[in-house]
């Protein structure tokens, strides 16, 4: 009897121990799984470049408060840390998904389309949940959102309804069954989290992008940089780029064909350099795929021929003195660090805004894991007159078989006052 009891007790103990062990294992597994989701959420938050807007200069991560100048006034970004009073600490995963997918706050309020929900609507529920799990895991910051400073009538949120009717199509990404899984993954990232269309599409007077103009390029309001078309090989269309050159550009900021600068340097710095090789390659495959070959550009210039030839001849003098030591006498450069100017779409494309600004302001590509100490272009605003800037830009746009058009001193002068940050 005694022994039976002890055996029974022992059995119970053993069972209990086994149960404990199983529970512990389950817990470990659950924690591991949660950890995985948070890590995936962090990765996806990088792919969506949330920090570009939701972290202010010298501010705490995702605490918002960054001023975003728009043609309609200044918008201040919101606190998306898990602080219950001032952040999204009281939100549920459903609330977060509704915001991403439908551009509405948990109380149904309308969100200004400066938040790229027209792109984020394509994000899957699982990815939205992962980003939410990550945002729940970061340090909460108690920092009240700053009220927007929008001019009448744009301070009336009801106007957003009109914008939504015109420009917003709700719906998760639908893969194209006729394309490869890689192409579809790239499309999902470019059209969804990457929100590339926010800049690389013409922005009309209503601050919207129409579907038919997607990725056709446009001047970025308030920044005065031209975001080139991703579909035209005359601009930033990547149709005749190798996949390696595209992935190099996206991951490191430099490539054998050209480097990123201006607002795109921000995107590579904060977002694209963190994407893994498979996703970067998928984006490259998709971007190469959407490029449509275009007919040769019309070689029409608004400048009289005599003025153009004077400019181009002065331009060669300016170029040989100031630019050839890095970019080469034939515009061949020393890629990837000193980009070639010959056969460089960003120099030749119809809008001359970017080459003029690069000459005036210079610039560094972003410092990335793959290129931590980039070479920089000196600013020439203080060294060259408007006429010399116009001349050298006209020269590089037309020399060595480049098919751009000359620009005027007035074009150069207007961009001297373009905002730098």
């Amino acid at each position, binding site marked *: 009897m005694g022994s039976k009891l002890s055996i029974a007790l022992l059995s119970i103990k053993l069972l209990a121990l086994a149960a404990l062990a199983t529970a512990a294992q389950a817990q470990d597994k659950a924690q591991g799984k949660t950890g995985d989701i948070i890590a995936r959420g962090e990765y996806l938050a990088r792919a969506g470049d949330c920090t570009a807007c939701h972290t202010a*200069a*010298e501010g705490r991560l995702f605490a918002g408060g960054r001023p975003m100048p728009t043609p309609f006034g200044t918008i201040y970004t919101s606190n998306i840390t898990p602080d219950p009073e001032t952040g999204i600490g009281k939100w549920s995963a459903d609330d977060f998904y509704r915001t991403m997918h439908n551009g509405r706050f948990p109380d149904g309020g309308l969100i200004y389309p400066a938040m790229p929900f027209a792109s984020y609507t394509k994000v899957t529920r699982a990815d939205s949940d992962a980003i939410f799990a990550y945002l729940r895991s970061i340090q909460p910051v108690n920092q009240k959102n700053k009220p927007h400073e929008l001019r009448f009538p744009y301070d009336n949120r009801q106007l957003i309804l009109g914008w939504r009717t015109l420009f917003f199509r709700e719906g998760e990404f639908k893969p194209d069954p006729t394309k490869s899984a890689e192409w579809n993954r790239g499309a999902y990232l470019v059209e969804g989290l990457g929100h590339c269309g926010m800049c690389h599409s013409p922005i009309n007077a209503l601050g919207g992008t129409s579907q038919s103009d997607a990725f056709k390029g446009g001047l970025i309001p308030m920044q005065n940089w031209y975001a080139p078309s991703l579909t035209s090989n005359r601009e930033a269309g990547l149709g005749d780029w190798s996949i390696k050159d595209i992935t190099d550009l996206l991951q490191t900021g430099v490539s*054998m064909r050209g480097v990123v600068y201006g607002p795109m*340097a*921000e995107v*590579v*710095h904060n977002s694209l350099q963190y994407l893994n090789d498979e996703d970067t390659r998928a984006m490259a495959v998709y971007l190469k795929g959407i490029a449509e070959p275009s007919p040769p550009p019309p070689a029409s210039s608004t400048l009289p021929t005599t003025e153009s030839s004077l400019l181009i001849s002065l331009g060669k003098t300016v170029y040989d003195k100031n630019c050839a030591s*890095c970019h080469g006498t034939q515009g061949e450069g*020393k*890629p990837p*660090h*000193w980009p070639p100017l010959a056969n460089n779409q960003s120099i030749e494309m119809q809008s001359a805004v970017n080459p003029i600004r690069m000459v005036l*302001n*210079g*610039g*560094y*590509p*972003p*410092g990335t894991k793959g290129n*931590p*100490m*980039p*070479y*920089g*272009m*000196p*600013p*020439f*605003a*203080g*060294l060259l007159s408007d006429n010399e800037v116009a001349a050298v830009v006209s020269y590089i746009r037309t020399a060595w078989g480049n098919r751009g058009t000359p620009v005027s001193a007035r074009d150069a002068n207007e961009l001297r006052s373009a*905002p*730098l*940050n």
Partner: protein
Amino acid sequence: MFARAAASAAVIVTLAAFDGAVAQTTSQPPDTMAARVEACTPCHGNKGEGTSDVYFPRLAGKPAGYLYNQLLAFRSGRRKYPPMNYLLEFLPDPYLEAMAEYFASEHPPLPQSAPSEVSKEVLAQGELLATSGDAGRNIPACVSCHGPGLTGMQPGIPGLLGLRAAYVSAQLGAWRYGTRTAKSPDCMQLVAGHLTEADVTAVAAWLATRPAPANPAPVPKGTYALPFGCGSQPN
């Protein structure tokens, strides 16, 4: 047999040609800091010695810690000058550190001091403030932090020689109006807050007349005690 040899020869020739092409296309810029900071040179000079533009400062020989703090402040926008803010925005800390060390280690000769455009009385007032301060108005002497030789102290306090009056005056003005700030405790803002516009003109003018010292290098950390706490020069 002959065909095979010919084919091999062709392969070798092709490879040689290919090697040549690769060598040509992979011609690279010099792997040096000098080549990497060429973007700085139109305004700051090839070796950071400054240029004819009186508002662009000399960088050469300043303590690396000071230069690094300025690069960080320009990158974050705390120190505002859009062309600098723009250039540095996406450069990582270790790179900025390397840039600071590069210019700190350059020692082009200091420029000849320029004859001053202000009166002797103003210069005398500048000298008095710079060397003795004005205890009654809570103004410490420049030399009490920037060193008896005004060459600065490692790692965070800059020398004040080789700078034009226009630059020093613009910076002191920016400290006074709070548009230039530094890490707390912001010692320069405290000091500049006690200066009048006339003080600024006098100090800037006198500093610009100083001849180059025999040894322009900043003195080592801890050579002398600072009169008060300074966020840019932690103990």
